[in-house]
């Protein structure tokens, strides 16, 4: 493959003008799930704890928090935003967009594209790639792309340990205004049924080990390998890397398979302390990395969504980052704001107790 038919590269250079994260304050330790469902067996837990949304939080309110943080860093007039695209698998409405509520609330309506994305855990990066296209074509100056979830795991299922809430948002704009340029993207997508939730089902189903090898690892490593080949880069050319993080183990192994060191993925590896934020998981790793990155740092972001596919984005930090990153709460400010809950409170907050 040549670079021309492999990479997505806008004709007008684009980048991240502002970024923002959001993580709700409640934390459910994995050992609490183990206490209730497997008699407290404490070995082999996939993470330490996960973030749980409060009773009045959903993807709309969380998106607003993240988008407002992104706007604080971008410092732009919201009326210039020409698209609000929000990726999630837990939009509060089956029909009626999250994105219109967010667009209205931030002052981007009515002259705006608005739509909700769904591609399991990679809907957030899908929105980013769409925003790259809209801005990169010159049709828009700014577009908002976000990915957040209030993911639910079936009680007692392996996913209940990790299914978490949180995510991130980005204002995509011209490269010359950006705190980090997005140099190119590459997506690797196949029909691979590793995880799904049909309409009217309350909880998703998954294919056990099938979600690993032929799904997560195949797509993540293929996307990462092909974008680096097309760009002529190698793992050591990147200061930082972020992989989709459904648990603590998968991103570390994917990184290792592609030649990245534990140090390169350290700032973005948040799943051990917030869980799997699904559409937000890879990109909240990016916001945490931007919180510490320096001008000139190069970042590889590889998302993964079941179904299945991976988006790989090649990013370079500009000298505008240091002045902007302190204009809003950082990712770790949210992670540090922690209220531990037990399984009973978790069951109440997540509506798992039947009231009628």
């Amino acid at each position: 493959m040549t670079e021309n038919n492999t990479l997505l590269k806008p004709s007008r250079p684009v980048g991240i003008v502002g970024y923002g994260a959001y993580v709700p304050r409640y934390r459910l330790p994995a050992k609490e799930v183990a206490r209730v469902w497997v008699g407290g067996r404490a070995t082999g837990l996939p993470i330490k704890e996960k973030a749980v949304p409060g009773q009045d939080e959903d993807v709309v309110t969380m998106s607003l928090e993240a988008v407002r943080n992104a706007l604080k860093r971008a410092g732009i007039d919201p009326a210039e935003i020409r698209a609000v695209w929000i990726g999630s698998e837990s939009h509060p409405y089956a029909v009626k967009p999250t994105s219109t509520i967010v667009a209205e609330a931030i002052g981007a309506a009515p002259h705006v594209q608005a739509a909700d994305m769904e591609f399991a855990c990679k809907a957030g990066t899908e929105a980013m790639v769409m925003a790259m296209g809209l801005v990169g074509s010159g049709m828009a100056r700014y577009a908002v792309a976000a990915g957040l979830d209030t993911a639910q795991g079936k009680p007692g299922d392996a996913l209940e340990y990790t299914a978490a809430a949180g995510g991130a948002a980005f204002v995509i704009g011209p490269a010359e205004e950006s705190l980090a340029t997005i140099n190119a993207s590459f997506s690797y997508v196949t029909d691979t049924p590793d995880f799904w939730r049909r309409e009217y089902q309350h909880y998703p189903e998954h294919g056990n080990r099938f979600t690993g090898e032929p799904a997560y690892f195949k797509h993540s490593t293929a996307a990462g390998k092909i974008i680096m080949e097309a760009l002529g880069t190698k793992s050591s050319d990147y200061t930082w890397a972020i992989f989709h993080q459904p648990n603590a183990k998968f991103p570390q192994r994917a990184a290792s398979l592609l030649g990245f060191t534990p140090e390169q993925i350290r700032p973005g590896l948040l799943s051990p302390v917030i869980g799997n934020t699904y559409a937000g998981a890879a990109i909240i790793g990016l916001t945490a990395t931007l919180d510490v990155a320096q001008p000139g740092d190069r970042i590889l972001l590889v998302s993964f969504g079941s179904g299945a596919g991976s988006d790989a984005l090649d990013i370079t930090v500009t000298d505008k980052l240091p002045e902007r990153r302190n204009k809003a709460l950082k990712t770790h400010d949210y992670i540090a704001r922690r209220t531990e809950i037990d399984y009973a409170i978790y069951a109440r907050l997540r509506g798992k107790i039947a009231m009628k």
Partner: protein
Amino acid sequence: MIMTDIIVAGIGQTSVGEHWDESLRSLAVQAIQAAIKNSGGLQPQALYVGNMLGAILSRQTHLGALLADYGGLTGIEAETVEAGGASGGAALRQGYLAVASGLVDVALVVGVEKFTDVIGPDLEAALATLTDADFESVHGLTLTAQAALLAGRYLHENHVPTDGLAGFALTAHSNGAGNKNAMFRKAIALDLYQKAEPICDPLNIFDVAPNADGAAALVLTRRELLPKDFPHPVVRLAASSIASDTLALAERSDPVWFTAAQASVEHAIQKAGIHREQVDLFEYYDAFSIFAALTLEAAGYAKRGEGWKLARDGFIALTGQLPCATLGGLKARGNPGGATGVYQAIDAVAQLRGQAGVNQITGARYALIQCLGGPASIAVTHILERLT
């Protein structure tokens, strides 16, 4: 009275594992094509399919017509044989009977199972149909729970230490390392066994063979019909025997004795005209470690209650007096349901032909193979012999 030698002329198999990108039919076709090629191109006149759960797991019955068609053999006699976990061995016996009778010159036996299209409770429910529906599975009993009940009784009655069955898994994994078609190809140490997660007390994860996808095929013919340039040492089926016991474990007055396993081994040994000490290797049915222990006792290699000691003491190791599970057994090769009995025959043929690689038993002449349906509710035993 059988007047001629029934020869296993061709063997073919897929690797055993989680073949997510293969279907029941594609696995079977690979094994069929490999076996026909291995036989020197013999043309089968009849197909006997060993399969256990295709109706539930693949929503596919009528495998005879399906696999004859996809195997490029449309028009030949074709049917499915089901005997629970012993389906592969039972299909082999049908092939043997057909060729021995003289009514069929070349028989194709294929065992196939496709597990990984169904996971979780649906798979457990499918497997539970192999127990007595009215008296066992209705109460929630699964095959694994049944084996655990047996193991608990066995350990208690015979004062066996809690890690007393470890030797079966250690032997299997050590041997699986030398089999490129095995699911697990890594030896394990005793401490890993001792620390393993329980599956159903007292059985831990290493006491239970993994259900996996796979297909294996054999071409059977009479000796005089072998191609002139047949390239392999000639291996015959010296004996074939099948016996049954109660389906429900609770119906047995002595649950920790595999009566059907004993009967079919004794019959086979007698038919082959050998002593059990002449057997060079034993491919037993170690779907659960406790099955292996009970089988060694039933087959007369250990006193009642002492089968586990043969694993502990190296008797069943590749270098022991009776090498067992020589290419990994069900535990390390994987347990592909209705294909397992056919894999056992292939392992035996590989050993007798001298094609078993690093796991070769030098000079092996007689191989005993046995597969079980449930806790020896059915026991199918064959003895294979290398002819000189």
